[in-house]
């Protein structure tokens, strides 16, 4: 989670135009979408490449066929106070889109990175993790929350690129006075 409502993202080697090998097209645009979803809550989320101690570093990399479209991690060299504990502050979290699953998608219907809607959902999902949201696994929220546990749910035309009202309420209550 974040220590306060002011939440800086640092994009690492992301091209806004995208479409380069080892990358995922429009990943930066997806990140902008995810930041906007958080900024619509009590959080003040923004992109700042000049911040030497950002809350989140966002990048794209080929970490192989590991089974995940994206990761959120709290590295051991983070500058917060939480290490990997989910209930404590971690500054310098890493959010990674796994480019392997953009280029080499063997999952039915897509891998969660193939079009803009999926990428937006994944950014919303991983960024949601960084501020404390956990996976949603209740069937009724499968198509209504970006925090549903899987990246490839349904077709990309289904709107699910944002936290649902329930999750937004939690974020507002948690961060409004921090």
């Amino acid at each position, binding site marked *: 989670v974040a220590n306060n409502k002011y939440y800086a993202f640092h994009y690492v080697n992301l091209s806004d135009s995208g479409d380069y090998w080892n990358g995922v097209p429009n990943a930066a645009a997806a990140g902008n979408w995810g930041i906007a979803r958080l900024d619509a809550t009590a959080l003040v989320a923004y992109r700042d490449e000049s911040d030497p101690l950002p809350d989140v570093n966002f990048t794209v990399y080929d970490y192989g066929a590991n*089974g995940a479209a994206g990761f959120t991690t709290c590295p051991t060299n983070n500058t917060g106070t939480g290490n990997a504990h989910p209930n404590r502050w971690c500054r310098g979290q890493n959010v*990674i889109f796994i480019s392997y699953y953009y*280029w*080499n998608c063997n999952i*039915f219907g897509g891998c969660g990175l*193939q079009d803009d809607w999926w990428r937006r959902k994944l950014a919303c999902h991983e960024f949601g*993790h960084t501020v404390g949201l956990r996976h949603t*696994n209740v069937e009724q929220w499968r198509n209504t929350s970006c925090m549903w546990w*899987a990246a490839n749910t349904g077709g990309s035309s289904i709107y699910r690129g944002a936290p649902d009202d329930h999750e937004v309420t939690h974020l507002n209550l948690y961060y409004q006075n921090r």
Partner: protein
Amino acid sequence: MRKRMVVLAALAVLTGCGSETVTDTKQSGDFQFFEPMRLPEGATGFEAPDTLNGAYELTTTTVLAKVANVRPGRTIKGEAGDLQWVVVELDVVEVLNGELEPTLNGKTEVEFAANWAPTPVDPIVQKMRASLPSEPSVWLLRWEGRPFGLMPGAKVDDFNVDETKYVLANHDVGVFAEQNGVLVSATASKDVPSRGARKQAEDLKTVKALADHARKFR
């Protein structure tokens, strides 16, 4: 009162309010072996296909196999950290459908992403070695040298894969084993609903019944 509500709400955020507990998380005996193979909470995995036949189509082969050994694997270095892998060596009892990759001469090794450096991987390996499953289980595997579904412009030779290894075709339906007499997806994420191919497999109840089902898919 207001302050108390805030505290309760915060706890709800952090503890996954509204979660359904679907998977039996009680781990006993050799079933603990599979625990490190699940994706962690911070990873966003993939739902399995709607049907078991659809799941088989994702594989290079489906095998009935016993675990022979576990060892540390490779490390993929990157700016966001170094991802460390672990290798599971299998003794294949029977190829149920598909075929083993011929260039590997029967060697069947499955790698999975275990953790991020500098956290050591050895404790995971030791823990898994101490709980090797005593019975065969059903493994849905994909050889890493078999790309498909490629996007235009993909450079296959540049993929960060190990062509001497297999990976789970999909963690949701990666390995099926019996736990306390019940067939479960051993590598599915915890507290995730069983649906589609996974539910179809688990409804078959036993490794034997799932193996029979897999044999019919050619």
